[in-house]
C-alpha cells in the first residue's frame, strides 16, 4: 500500500511535467499542423537558463552557492522561474520568426526538417563552452528539501513511510495552475478564439481579419514559456543537470510528444490527459513489472491506444481528403 501510494505521488509529479511539455507540442500542431521537434530543446534551454539565472541571482544577493545548505528565500525561485520563462518565450518567438515563418507556404515536410535543424542547432550551441558547456552541472537548491507530509502504513517491523516532498507538490501546483491558465486562455478569451479559429482554417481566419502571424507567434511564445516552466520544475526535482545534448533530454521530449499523441494531438485537454497516462504507465510499469523496460511501456501504450483510437484519447479522427 505504501509503495503504491509512493509510486502514485511520483507519477503525478512526473505526469505534470509531461503534460506541460505536451501542451507546447499540441498547440503548435493544432495551429500549424507540424511537429515542432525543437520543442524539447526549449525544455533543455529552460532548465539550463534556470541554472544560469539562479547562479547569477544568488551571486547578486551575495549567497555562496558552493556548499550551500539552506535554500534562499522563496522569491529567488519565483524570480528564476519568471526569468527563464521570459527568456525562453523570447527564444521561441525568435525561432518562429526566423525559421518557420518564411516557410509558412512551403510544404509541411520542409518545415519538419527545419524543425529538426533548429533542434540540432540549439543542442550544439548549448554545448559550447561560452554558452552552457558540455559538462553536467549541479543546480543550486532553491526550494527547501522539506517533507510536506508523511504517512505511515502498517505497524512495527513492517511500517513503511510515504513521503510527500515539497518539490513534488510545487511541481504539481505550478504545473496545474499553468495548465488551468492555458485552459482559460484558449477557451475563454478573445485570443483563444483567434487561436482556435486559425487552427480550424488558417485562410478563412485570415479572411475574417484575424492576424494569423501574430496568433502563431503568440502560440509559440506560450508553448516555449510552458516548456521553460517544465524545464525549471524538472531541475528542481532532479538537480543534477545533464549536458544540453544528452540523450536523456531527447527521451524526455519524445515521451512528452507521445503524451500529446496519446491525448489526441491538437487537443489541449488531451495533452494533459496524455501526460498523466504516460507517467502512470511508466512509473507503475517500472515498479510492478521491471525497471528495465520503463521506456518500452510508454511506447507500447502508444501503439495500443493508436490501434483502438487512431486519433488519440480525446482526438477526433478526420479522414484526409485526397
Amino acid at each position, binding site marked *: 500500500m*505504501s*509503495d503504491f501510494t*509512493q*509510486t502514485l505521488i*511520483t507519477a503525478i509529479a*512526473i505526469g505534470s511535467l509531461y503534460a506541460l511539455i505536451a501542451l507546447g507540442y499540441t498547440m503548435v500542431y493544432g495551429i500549424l499542423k507540424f511537429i515542432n521537434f525543437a520543442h524539447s530543446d526549449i525544455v533543455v534551454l529552460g532548465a539550463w537558463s534556470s541554472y544560469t539565472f539562479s547562479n547569477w541571482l544568488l551571486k547578486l544577493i551575495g549567497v555562496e552557492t*558552493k*556548499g550551500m*545548505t539552506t535554500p534562499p528565500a522563496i522569491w529567488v525561485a519565483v524570480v528564476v522561474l519568471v526569468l527563464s520563462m521570459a527568456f525562453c518565450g523570447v527564444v521561441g518567438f525568435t525561432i518562429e520568426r526566423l525559421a518557420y515563418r518564411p516557410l509558412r507556404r512551403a510544404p509541411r515536410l520542409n518545415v519538419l526538417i527545419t524543425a529538426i535543424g533548429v533542434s540540432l542547432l540549439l543542442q550544439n550551441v548549448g*554545448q559550447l563552452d561560452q554558452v552552457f*558547456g*558540455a*559538462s*553536467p552541472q*549541479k543546480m543550486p*537548491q532553491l526550494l527547501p*528539501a522539506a517533507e510536506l507530509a*508523511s504517512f505511515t502504513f502498517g505497524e512495527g517491523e513492517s511500517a*513503511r*513511510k510515504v*513521503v510527500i*516532498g515539497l518539490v513534488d507538490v510545487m511541481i504539481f501546483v505550478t504545473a496545474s495552475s499553468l495548465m488551468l491558465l492555458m485552459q482559460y486562455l484558449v477557451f475563454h478569451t478573445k485570443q483563444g478564439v483567434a487561436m482556435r479559429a486559425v487552427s480550424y482554417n488558417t485562410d478563412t481566419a485570415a479572411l475574417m481579419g484575424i492576424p494569423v502571424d501574430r496568433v502563431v507567434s503568440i502560440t509559440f511564445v506560450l508553448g516555449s514559456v510552458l516548456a521553460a516552466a517544465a524545464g525549471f520544475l*524538472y531541475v528542481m*526535482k*532532479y*538537480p*543534477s543537470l*545533464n*549536458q544540453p545534448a*544528452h*540523450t*536523456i533530454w531527447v527521451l524526455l521530449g519524445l515521451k512528452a510528444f507521445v503524451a500529446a499523441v496519446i491525448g489526441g494531438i491538437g487537443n489541449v485537454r488531451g495533452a494533459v490527459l496524455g501526460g498523466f497516462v504516460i507517467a502512470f504507465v511508466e*512509473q507503475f510499469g*517500472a*515498479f510492478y513489472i*521491471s*525497471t*528495465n523496460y*520503463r521506456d518500452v511501456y510508454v511506447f507500447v501504450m502508444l501503439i495500443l491506444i493508436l490501434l483502438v483510437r487512431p486519433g488519440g484519447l480525446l482526438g477526433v479522427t478526420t479522414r484526409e481528403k485526397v
Partner: protein
Amino acid sequence: MTHFRFQGPRRIIAVMVAAAMSLAMTGCQESGSTASDEILIGHFASLTGSEATFGQSTDNGIKLAVDEINEAGGIHGKKVRLVTLDDKGDAREAGTAVTRLVTKDGVVAVLGEVASKLSLAGAPICQENGVPMISPSSTNPKVTKVGDMIFRVCFIDPFQGAVCARFARESDRIKATKAAILTDQASPYSVGLQEEFEKAFTAMGGTIVSKQTYNAGDQDFSAQLTAIRGADPEVVFVPGYYTDVGNIAIQARTLGLTKPLLGGDGWDSVKLGEIAGANINGCFYSNHYSHEDPNPKVQDFIRKYAERHKQTPDGLAALGYDAARILFEAMQRTPNVDGKSLAAELSKTSGFEGVTGKISIDAERNAVKSAVILEMKDGNPTYVSTIQPGE
C-alpha cells in the same frame, strides 16, 4: 572557342594539383623531422560529458608524468609529447579518437580510458594496429582480454566486487546480511561489478533481497528505490558512476531510505559530494588510493600535483600518473619503441612502486594490487581501511 573553355579550368586544376602535392611533400618532411626528436603518446579521455572529471583527472595525472620525464631529459634523449583527444564519454567517439591517434597522429602507445565501456571501444583498434594500450582505471576483466597489446594498471572487478562484499558483510560499520543492488544495466563496468559482488556476498552467507537496474543518465530512480525500500536491505550496492550515484543518493534519502550506499571506484570524483551534498554522507566506496595515505610517495605526488593543477588528485589522477610512468619505464628499458617490443617490456613490469601501490603486471596483463575503502564525510572521501589481494 570551346577549345579555350576547356583549357582554362584544366590549367587551374593542374596548378592546384601541383600546389597540393608540394604542400603534401613539405608536410611529410615536417612530420618526418618531428618524429625523430619526439615520442608521441596518445590519450583518449572523457574531457566533457557525464564522466568529465574522470578524463580531466586522468589527463592531469598523465601531464604531470610527462612533464617530469621531459624535465629529466626525456626517453633516449627524445622529448615525450602527449596528444589528448576528447571522447565525450561516448563509445563511438572513443573509437574515432583512438583510430585518429593510431593512424593519423601515429602515436607509439595509447593511454585510456577510465570507463570500461570506452576502453572496450578503443582496445580492438589498438590491438589490430599493434599499438600497446594501457588503461589506467578500467576494471572490467574483458578489457585486457581483447588481446596481448592491452594492459591495465588497476585491479579488476572480481577483486573489487569481493572487497565491497567483504566490507558490507564483515565491517563493523555495516555488518549486513541483506543487501540490495542497483545496477546500470548498459554498462559493462556496473554489470561486472554487480555480478562479482553478488557472488562474493552470497558466498559469505548474505542474501540479495532486491535487484534493480537503471540506464546511465536516468533522472528518476524512485520506482527502483521504492522497491528497494520495500525489501528492507541493510546496505544498497550501487556500482555506478558518480553523476548517477549522486542523483540516486538524493532520491534515496528523500524517500526515507537511510541505509548506507556502497559502490566502486566509479564514485571517485569531487563532483559526487557537489551533486549529492549531505545525502551521500555515511556511504562507502572502494578505490585505488586515498589522499590521506601517509606514504611519502603518495604525499610527494599530491604536493606536485597540487602545485601543477591547483587541486587534490583523486584516484583517477593517481592512476593516470602511474600508467604514464609505467609506460615510460618500459620505453626506457627497450631501445626500439615499436609496438611489439614495447608490449613485451610492459608485460615484464614487476614491483613498480606507484602512487596507487606496488604494481606488477600478471600474465593476463592486469595489475595485482590492494584496494582502499573510503567513507564520504561532509562531502569528502575519508580513509577507512585497506584490503590486500588474496587476503
